[in-house]
């Protein structure tokens, strides 16, 4: 049954500490494969017939530590398995090539603890189990980051990650506990029952807490501060899991709360989510374009895609508020499908980045180039990942974005001017996001894989080993499969969305896209075959260099140069603080050397977080001053306390 993924993962990671499993990579990967496949199978079965499976490993007095899987949980469990299996495959050789034996053991253990904890989150059926698994998930990911190394900078990033995660968790805990006075238990069933009859104030507080808590984990702007710091510094498989799956767990939590527990709410819930999604999507992609560290860039794209998912969720909430259930189902299905898709192609891309860093020892785009000729398979799958993430037709990203688009169109059918205007306009926002994403990935793939190599490392890059290729190929295949044959994948997801929003019928649009896309794909291939007849034999000639000799790779457009126009147009977003040093300083007009570099720090840290932290620390220092070493003052404190209490007793008590 679906849950056996969790115990078996548990055993496998315990067995790692046995020295005999020094090179246990393969065996463990096999174990996980079996477990995850079993989970997928079971999941798929009861994703269709909506039965619920229960498991209660331990009565952790006084809190029930129970697990059970409903369709939502199963969907996300499948997502977890579908990503973690290829990632495990990828890791088999990646880990062996990168880490010492001791670290390998830890890394495997933590990887599987991480996966198991995420499975635990989606399988939990009581708030307590949810929170425990949630916390362990955060810890395991932190541990994975720590394995990679702990230099000062990484430490700072990790610190920010853990701190923000913990704050978010606090909000989540609060969100669960606010139910208590009304549900008297943290069991999901009780919470669901109580959710229907909440006073509006509590409902609002709950929604805001859940939004903030899960938004922090999901990386909604401006709560995203940790995301582009934490993901790049993790080992590539871990980055893939964090960006591909962990964020989705946050989405799961939010869906669980907003749709399952609260069952929607007033329209402004939806507008809040919608606006947050739009902001995250736009800013995320804009920040991504400006990056030239591949993994940071991908991390920012996670922010963008989470934004797209939240666009869908917000639209769905709005539809529910106006009681347009079918449209709500469409939007929600789009969001859920995009969650799955993003999990697939984002982990694929992160694995690709891992393969690149594996063969070139850098993920700095400025040092790459010409990899397509040197690692063709990696290049091909990476290209598929790019096509999917920018939502080109015949790839999975398109299907989900299309559904969200269509749901925006549906906004015009509502009888509310705000919805009628805002939702269709969001289609424009989504289009802009898509266009910018396309630009960004032209840059990524073009600079990294095409043209001439920009460094020695890239010059001598070689294809990734078998297991890494296999892992990436699996994910790529999944992307294409969903892209050209969406019907099979849409059915369960749509019915899930229907059951969540209580829609009477499946939205017709889904059937439409499911029927059209295969035809388009067929036509596409046929035409490709026909047209390729027109090709002729190739001959190699040197690139045109305006007739001058010696075209070097330094003459190519760099990643920074490529993104310059967009950065110029959206200059207001970036607030880059440039540093220009003229040496020697005393003679600015006859400089010996001019050094220039621009650091683009997102202004959130400056404007939002720094003041808060500094305030707290300042308060602490003030308190510190009260602790004067003078014993007389201490005695005075005691007496003053006593006297004030006596006065309180006299006049109040």
């Amino acid at each position, binding site marked *: 049954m679906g849950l056996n993924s969790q115990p078996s993962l548990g055993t496998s990671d315990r067995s790692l500490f046995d020295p005999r499993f020094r090179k246990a990579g393969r065996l463990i990967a096999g174990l996980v494969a079996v477990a995850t496949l079993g989970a997928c199978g079971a999941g798929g079965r009861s994703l269709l017939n909506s039965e619920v499976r229960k498991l209660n490993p331990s009565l952790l007095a006084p809190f029930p530590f129970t697990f059970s899987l409903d369709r939502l949980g199963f969907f996300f469990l499948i997502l977890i398995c579908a990503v973690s299996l290829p990632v495990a495959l990828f890791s088999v050789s990646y880990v062996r090539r990168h880490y010492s034996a001791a670290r390998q053991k830890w890394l495997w253990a933590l990887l599987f603890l991480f996966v198991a904890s995420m499975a635990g989150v989606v399988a939990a059926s009581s708030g307590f189990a949810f929170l425990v698994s949630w916390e362990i998930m955060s810890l395991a990911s932190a541990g994975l980051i720590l394995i990679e190394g702990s230099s000062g900078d990484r430490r700072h990033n990790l610190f920010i990650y853990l701190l923000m995660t913990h704050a978010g968790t606090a909000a989540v805990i609060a969100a669960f506990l606010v139910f208590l006075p009304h549900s008297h238990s943290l069991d999901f069933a009780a919470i669901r029952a109580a959710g229907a009859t909440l006073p509006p104030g509590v409902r609002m507080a709950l929604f805001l807490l859940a939004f903030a808590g899960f938004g922090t984990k999901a990386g909604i702007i401006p709560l995203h501060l940790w995301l582009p710091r934490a993901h790049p510094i993790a080992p590539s498989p871990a980055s893939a899991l964090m960006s591909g799956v962990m964020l989705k767990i946050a989405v799961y939590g939010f869906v669980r709360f907003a749709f399952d527990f609260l069952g929607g709410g007033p329209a402004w819930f939806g507008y809040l989510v919608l606006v947050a999604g739009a902001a995250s999507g736009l800013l995320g992609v804009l920040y991504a374009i400006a990056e030239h560290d591949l993994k940071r860039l991908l991390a920012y794209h996670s922010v963008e895609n989470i934004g797209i998912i939240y666009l869908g969720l917000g639209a769905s909430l709005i539809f529910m508020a106006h009681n347009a259930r079918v449209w709500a189902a469409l939007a929600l299905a789009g969001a859920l499908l995009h969650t799955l898709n993003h999990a697939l192609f984002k982990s694929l891309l992160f694995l690709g980045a891992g393969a690149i860093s594996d063969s070139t020892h850098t993920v700095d785009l400025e040092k790459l180039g010409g990899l397509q000729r040197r690692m063709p398979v990696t290049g091909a799958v990476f290209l598929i990942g790019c096509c999917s993430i920018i939502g080109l037709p015949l790839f999975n990203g398109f299907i989900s974005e299309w559904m969200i688009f269509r749901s925006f169109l549906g906004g015009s059918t509502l009888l509310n001017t705000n919805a009628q205007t805002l939702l269709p306009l969001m289609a424009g926002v989504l289009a802009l996001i898509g266009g910018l994403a396309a630009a960004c990935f032209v840059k990524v793939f073009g600079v990294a894989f095409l043209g001439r190599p920009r460094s020695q490392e890239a010059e001598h890059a070689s294809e990734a080993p078998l297991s890494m290729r296999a892992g990436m190929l699996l994910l790529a295949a999944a992307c294409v499969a969903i892209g050209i044959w969406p019907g099979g994948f849409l059915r369960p997801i749509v019915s899930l969305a229907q059951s969540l929003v209580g829609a009477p019928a499946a939205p017709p649009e889904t059937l439409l896209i499911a029927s059209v896309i295969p035809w388009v794909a067929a036509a596409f291939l046929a035409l490709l075959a026909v047209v390729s007849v027109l090709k002729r034999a190739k001959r190699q000639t040197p690139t045109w260099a305006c007739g001058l000799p010696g075209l070097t790779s330094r003459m190519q457009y760099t990643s920074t140069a490529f993104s310059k126009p967009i950065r110029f147009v959206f200059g207001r977003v970036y607030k880059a603080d440039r540093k220009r040093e003229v040496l020697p300083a005393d003679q600015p007009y006859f400089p010996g050397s001019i050094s220039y570099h621009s650091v683009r720090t997102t202004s959130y840290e400056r404007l939002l977080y720094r003041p808060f932290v500094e305030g707290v620390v300042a308060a602490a220092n003030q308190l510190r001053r009260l602790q004067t*070493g*003078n014993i*007389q003052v201490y*005695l005075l404190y005691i007496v003053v306390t006593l006297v004030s209490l006596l006065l309180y007793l006299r006049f109040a008590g």
Partner: protein
Amino acid sequence: MGILETTAARVLSAYSVFLFLTILAQAAARRFSTNVLLFSLQSAIIAIQVAVIGYHEKLMEAYVVAALIVLLKVVGIPYAFFRLIEKLKSPREVISATSAAESAFVAVGMIWLSYGAVRSYAGGVHAPEDGLAAAVALILTGAFLMISRRKALVQMIGLLVLENGIFLAALTTTFGMPLIIEIGIFFDVLIGLLLMGLFVFRIRDTFDHLDVSKMRKLRG
């Protein structure tokens, strides 16, 4: 027959006045030895008080307690203090944060406050009011001495005064607690003083002074 009762009653009513006097004097005292003497005087008054009550209420225990007081607080502890001063050879003056006059006024204020406190809190208690007031005043003065005086020794005196106050309170309100408890408390006080004496020596050895307000290495 009649004489004793009447004197007993007199003492009962009048002893608090003497206590207030000692309080004022202690607040104003500039020399350490004076403080010690005043303390033993104070204890003596209380001892008499205990004895009288014992006679009045026909309590055998009370005499034991009185004897203990005389033994410890009137004779023993002051003697120990004088020995301590001999051995420490520390300057005799009490370094105070407040001047003598100010301290005296503070003491006056506290006596007044204590009456107010007794009126407001222990209103229901049918104990001799000024006796209770004296007790509270003693407690407050003890605290005041500990807070305002910088010398470790004077802090010890302050503590003792505080104890006296509490003891007196117990006495005046409930004619003392069960004997064994009383004895235990005495014992604790004694050990506490011994320890403090020990620490005073250590302070002297490690810091070369007895000024507690200068011991501020540990802070924050």
